[in-house]
Every structure is written in C-alpha cells, then in structure tokens.
C-alpha cells in the first residue's frame, strides 16, 4: 500500500498542453476528451501584468463526492489513495460529473462511460511516472509516494511554498502573490452531504429520475440474480 500524490509547480507551467495530449494518446482517449483542464489567470495592469496557468485534474480526494453519489459502486477509492472507476460497473449516469468539485470528470461518448485521471495507474504499477509528468516540457509536474519522507515529492511537499489542496492528493507551488489561485479544499456539494449524512442510504436512489431508474434496475437485476434471503 502506498499513498500517491501529485504536485504542480505553477511557476513552471507554460500552458502548452503537452500533458493534455500525452495523456490523451497514452490513455487512448478521443481527441476531444481531456482529463486535464487549464485555468489561466492574469492580474495587474499593462505593462505590470502577471499570469499563471493552473492545470487541474482528478485530485484524488480523501473523501470523494463522486464515490458517494455513484449508484453502482463503479467509482471507488483504493488503498493507495487513488480514486478509480470500475468500468464494468459504470453505467454512465453522470452523477459523479456533477458531484465532482473540480470538474475533473467527463463523459466519454465513445465508451458510454465516465472518464477521469487515474494517475496513470497502469504506468505507476510498472514504476513509471504518469504520462503528464513524463511529458511536461518544463518539469512543472511531480508525482510519487508521500509515505516515504525521502521521496522527491515528499521533499517538495515539505517546502514552504507548497500548498495542499485540502482533503485531496494534490499539491501546488504558486508564484508569490497568487495564493488565492489555489483550488478550494475538497468540499462536498450540499446535496452530497445530505445524501451521505442524513438520507443515506435511501437517498441515493432518489437523486434523479432517469439515472436513478437505470441504477435501480441495474441493482435489481443483480439482486434478483443473487442470493436474497427474504425475511
């Protein structure tokens, strides 16, 4: 078991999108679906203008809202801290897309399932870096195990100018004066909180009409086919 994290040094991000396309090709995504999004901000008045480019993707939250709302259990968090999707179970209901506070999930029309960053788990399994980290032309991206305090990423995390996105596995280094650009802590949308804290578990099936029905029928099929010992 390892705990993985990613760090983006915004001081070095030149907004070139190399990570986006490398991610797309590595993960066999259609050209119009990207797991990485880019937020560009400017401040100051000409010629005292400053910019930052802030790439975001799945932050691999500690308590992921997407997992809470997933009606089929397709989205889950594993022991390594990765939020993953079991594609056999994903029914494409898109609840997770609306629940994600970071807009990190997209619907892949070619598969009919939801897509998002998995920290390139198949590469990480082989001891490789995620494709976005490997591809970054200006060495703005870092990835590794945070359990090991001697790992390069742990050392970067320990530096004073590194900020954690609260409740996630994501860290940023921001230029001076840009602290407010740090993505908000992982806060679950109110309806997800309601769902998990108050009306759970029944609330899940009440989330919406069509998707709820799909989910229910899917579960019913499974239940009917399984061992149900009625009272």
């Amino acid at each position: 078991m390892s705990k993985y994290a990613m760090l983006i040094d915004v001081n070095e991000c030149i907004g070139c999108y190399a990570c986006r396309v490398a991610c797309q090709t590595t993960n066999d995504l259609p050209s119009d679906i990207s797991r990485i999004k880019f937020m560009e901000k400017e401040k100051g008045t000409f010629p005292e203008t400053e910019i930052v480019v802030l790439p975001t993707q799945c932050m691999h939250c500690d308590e992921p809202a997407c997992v809470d709302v997933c009606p089929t259990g397709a989205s889950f968090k594993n022991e390594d801290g990765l939020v993953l999707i079991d594609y056999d179970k994903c029914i494409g209901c898109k609840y997770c897309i609306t629940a994600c506070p970071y807009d990190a999930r997209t619907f892949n029309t070619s598969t009919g399932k939801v897509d998002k960053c998995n920290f390139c788990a198949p590469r990480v399994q082989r001891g490789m870096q995620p494709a976005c980290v490997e591809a970054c032309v200006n060495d703005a991206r870092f990835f590794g195990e945070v359990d090991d305090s001697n790992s390069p990423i742990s050392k970067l995390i320990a530096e004073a100018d590194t900020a954690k996105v609260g409740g996630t596995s994501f860290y940023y280094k921001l230029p001076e004066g840009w602290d407010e650009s740090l993505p908000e802590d992982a806060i679950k949308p109110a309806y997800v909180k309601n769902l998990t804290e108050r009306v759970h578990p029944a609330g899940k099936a009440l989330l919406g009409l069509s998707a709820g029905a799909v989910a229910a029928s899917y579960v019913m099929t499974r239940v009917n086919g399984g061992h149900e010992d009625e009272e």
Partner: protein
Amino acid sequence: MKLNRRTFLKLSAATASMAALGASKYRSVDNWASANERPSNITTAYSVCNSCGNRCGIMAYLRNGRLWRITGNPDDNKSGGKICTRGHGYAQMVYDKYRLSQPLKRTSDGSFVEIPWEQAYQEIGDKLMGVVRKYGPQSVFWSEYSKPISNFYGARLMAALGSPNWTTHSSTCFVGRNVGFDYTLGGLPSGDYENTKYVVFVGRSPADGMGLNILKGLGVAKKKGAKVVSVDPRLSYSAGVLADEWVAVKPGTDLALLLAWMNVLIAENLYDKGFVENYTVGFAELKEMVKQYTPEWAETITGVKAEQIRRIGRELGANRPAAFLEPGWHAAYGSNYANSTQTARATAIVNGLLGNINKPGGLCFYNRVSFGGLNPELYPTPPASPYERVDGAGVKGKYPLTLSTGLHHLLPGLAKEGKLKAGIFYSVNPGRTVPDRNYVIEGYKNLELTIVIDWQMSETAEQFADYVLPESHPMERDGIVEAIASSRPQVTMQAKVIDPVHSGGRGLDRIVSELATAMGLERFFNFTLEDLNKAMLFPLGLFPVHLKSRGIVDGDAGQWHYEFPVDGSGKPSLRTKSGKVEFFSSSFAEHGHNPLPAWQAPKVMPSGDKLRMIHGHQAYHTHAQTMNNPYLMSITKDYEGDSIWLNTETAKRLGISDGDTVQVSGNGWEAKSKVKVTQRIHPEALFVPGGYGGFAKSLVRGYGIGVNINDFLKHDTEPISGHAMMEEVLVSVKRA
C-alpha cells in the same frame, strides 16, 4: 420483484455492499491497473519529429504494431527527452482519415480525380520537360518548408533540370535574422543556456514557438540564479512564466532598445574592451553613432521606461560574458519589419560588445560532424545551374546579401510576370502562409504546371495545384541523416516506425527519383536513400542501422573549447569577411545599405485607433500545418485559442468587451473574430495567433476557424535580406 419500501431499502444496502465489493476487488493500484489494461505487445523505435523545424529526437511506442504514443528521446540534445504538444498530435495523424492516399489530378471542372502513380509521373514528366524546352529551366522552381530530405532531393532535382530556383520558406520566417547575424558574427550561434547568468529574448518565445532545449537549459540556469528577460509587445508564456522580467516594447521598435543598450554599455564602460580590441571591427564608428541613442531617447520610441532600459543594459554588462541576447527566430527581426535586418545586426552587435562569443554562458559556435557524400564517379552530381535565380536572391542589383534558399514570397508575382511557368511545392502551403492571399493565388494560377507533394491537402493544393502527390507520413519512412550541433555533437535520422497505413503514399526520395526517371534524368538519381545515408555516414564509421537502433549517436567532431574561433596561424576566423565581429559592415556599405544599424522606424506606425497587427505561435500549433489535427484543434476549441487579443484600455476606448465578436479591417480585408481582452498586450497592437483562418474545405477541422494575418498584408519586400515584412500592417477593429 415488487418495489416496496422494505425491498427498496434492501436494494440500497445492496448498492452500498457492491461499492464495498468494488473497493475490495481493486484494493491496490496493481490489480486495478492490470484489470484495465489491454493485452498488448509494446515495442519501441527511434525517429525524429517532423511537426516543426526543430526536428527533435523521439521514441515511438507501438502497441501490437500500431503507433500508440511518442516521447522525447532522452539522449537527444535538442529535445532533452521531451516532446511538445504538436509532436504528440502530429504523430497521430498517421492514422487520420483525411490523409492523402492516391495521386490526384485536377479535371476540367476543377475537381480532383485519383490517378495511378505511373500516369502521374508520365504526365507530370512530359509537361515539366515541355516547360523546360519551351521556356528554359529557369522557369521552373521548387518550393519547400525546409526539411533535410527536400533540402537534398528538391535541390538535386532542380539542378538536374538546370533550374537555379530551389527555394525554402525562409523569406517569410527567419531570413532577416540570418542575414543580420551572418554579416556581423559570420553565422548563427547557439546560446550556452545552462551556464548563462543573464539572457534576453528579443521577440522569441521558446514557450510558444517551442525550444525544448532552451526550456531545459533555462531550467538549469535559473536554479543557479540566472535572470531571464523577455522583450515582447505581448506577455507571452515565455515573458509571463519563464522570464523574471518583461520588457513590453512597442512592436517594431526593438532596434531602438538595442541601440540604447549599446549606448549604455559603451558610455558606462561596461563592454568588453579586450574582446572589442582583438575581435571586432568598426568600434569607433559604432561608438560615435550610438552616442545619440540614450535610454531617454529610446523611451520615446519604444515606450519602455529609460530607467528599465538602463538597468538591463547595466545588468548585461555586469554579467558578461555569461550574458547574451538570444539570437531569436521570426518575431522581432526574422521577417516582420522594414528595420528587421538591421535589428538582427544590432542584436548581434550587443553580443559583440558583451564579448560573449564562445564563452561559458555566452553564444557559442558549436561543432557539428562532417558527413560524406555520394561518390560522383558512381553517382554523377548534376551541374549547378548556369542561370541566375529568378527571385534575385544572391543576384547583384537585386538581393545579393540574402540566403541561397531564395525569396519564396516573390514567386507568385514572378509567375504572373511569366518568368516562372512550373513549380513543385513540397510540404509547404503558401496559399495560407504567405502574405496577401489574392496576390499569391492569382499569381500562382498563371503557372502552366503546379505540383503539390504532401500527406494532407492544403489551401495551396486546393487553390492552384494541377497534381497532388501523396507523400507517406514521416512515421512511415526513413529520412536523411542529420547532424546536431552542440558542445557534444550528435548524429540522428528520421527512421521508419510503422509500415505504411496507405499503400499509395511514397517517400519524397522515391517520388523525386521516379519523376526524374520519367523525365530521362535517372542518371542523377541512380541510388537509394539507403545508399545516400550510407555514403554520408561512411566517414563517421557508422551505418544507418546504428542510428535506427540507437536513435542518437555521438559524433566525433573534435573537442569543443570555449575559445574564439581562430585559424591555423591564430588569426580570428569567424565566417565574416574580416574573421572578426563586424560592428561596421563593409558588405552592407558596398551594396548601398547602412553599414551601421542606425535607427530606422518601421514602415507604418499605429496612430489613433489604427493598431498594428502582430502574430505569433501557440505552443500547440505549427503554422497552418496542424489546422486539421484533431488533438490540437480541440485545444483551440476548448480554450478559444483562435481569439485575437486586444489590450484592455484599447478595448474600453473602442467599446469592446472580452468575448465579443469584432470586425477587423485593414488593407482592404475584413474578417470577424472573437476577441480576448487582456492586459497582456501593448495598447497599440492587435495579436493574431497561429496559422488559423483556414480556407481549404478539405481541412475540415480548421476550415473557417479564426483569422490570419496574411490576409491583412499586402505583398511587400524589405530591400536588404528580401523578407516579406509581415507585421507592417495597421488595422482597425470594432464590434461586429
């Protein structure tokens, strides 16, 4: 099952337990990854990226024999193990459905029909020889986006025909820079980025135009405390991210800034006196001239505060010789302004004052390996053409100082005048990338024979080609061996990575050789590309297989030393007339140009609501070549990358808001565009990104997207290096 409350709750519990089940099934990263991976056989192959002129070394990953992804070759000094956005996208085009697969011939109704290769060769050969017989070989030209394969085969075909007109894209790209540097430093040096303490980019943006080795070198230098300055009318990603300081110069006035830096370096005795004494000519004349160009004077021209100019001048002097002005590419002095060639000279001269030539952290003339060549006894070399170039490049009284690669933007006019009758366009698209669309298309339509060789359609092919010959994609074919100049010289080659996807496409080597054979010129093409590569590598003790299996091979080109170049007798031996840095250029004087780069204003200047249109690369597009690339165009789409940029204050004055659609007019051309209102651009400039404004219907993903600066330009030529003056244009803008 009836759905009552009880069963409903049970269902929900089942859902929860299934979620738990899922988690337990894929507990660790390993088993999820294994379950989600296709069974596959991964192999790798080395090659060279073709997506721009940088030619970075790559590693291609194939999955079950199909190209999957590429990375930079870590051994390559140019890519440093990285590959840019364009490279990733370009490689995937090998499978694109819009690739050309069969030769095309234009029919009488203007459409194209597919024809077999043999018919194409026969018809083209007959017609081309007919033109040569009727009008002479000087009426034929070759035009290319410069690549090693066409540098050889295109030039050789022209020589075989007797034509002097082998031409590259240089006059709309970098010719002003090269001529300026050639007549000052005797060539174009490279920055010693890793060891520099202070570097100034005058116009060039390595984060947008892409210079992977520069990014890598700056990364090393910055960690050691180096300072990076970016001179640019726009806060590019280089100015905004890489640089410590942005000098927001008024577009077209960089020359004034450079003259002020000369003034500061000389007036404050910050220049390298020993170097100037030993290795330069014309210092006295230069000193006299720049007396007048104080930072205060430059402020009135450039809009940059005198104290900022003076401080940077002092910082350059304090950090010399590990300080340099980067030699640039297209932007400030490649081919944009009436003063560009002299601005390039001025950039080179500031470097001379800093005495940084072949110094650690300065500008270096690195070694490159010397290749062999074909044995002329076995493979006869076509004689050089006895004719002068029709475009006047290298011709007395026309453009004697410019490069032998010619002035391709002049060719349409020469076709209209009847001086050119047939042309071959290789991987170049003047229909979109040369200024003044109507001039280009109407001019080239006068040709009796137009052949386009490319792997995709283009504005050029659609508008005026008679024949379109499909080249295979670079991933499908070998190229010519290449030398990489560096402190550690290297040799590499583009190598075939996958079997051709389309059986119809052929490599340029084969197309040219077979066409030459159809014209009875086979004696000059009695060798294969493999023969040629073997002959070139012979003196190095290498074979193509070494490059294919290792990607990059270190070449022995002698030990690199940080020493000013000297000949056997110890005399300075830069490749200038004097062997020294020429502050004063007697060659320029001889041909009626100012031997010193005195201040010269651009041809047009913004005033009132007339703005200067400027342009520049995006990191994710290469000119118009990538306009049909689905990966790269989806970036444009997602981030409105085709928007033009307007300064916030200017926009406010004109009643324009961010995201508005605006109408841009200038030189009789009008176009609509979305606008990005930003503090990142000079108030007198309007920025047009990349190679948009596609009007080739077959390039569906880029058709009608964005605007292109070339449409707002009128055909024009600067007199020294003969470039196309691509930012001498004023436009007005209003809400559409």
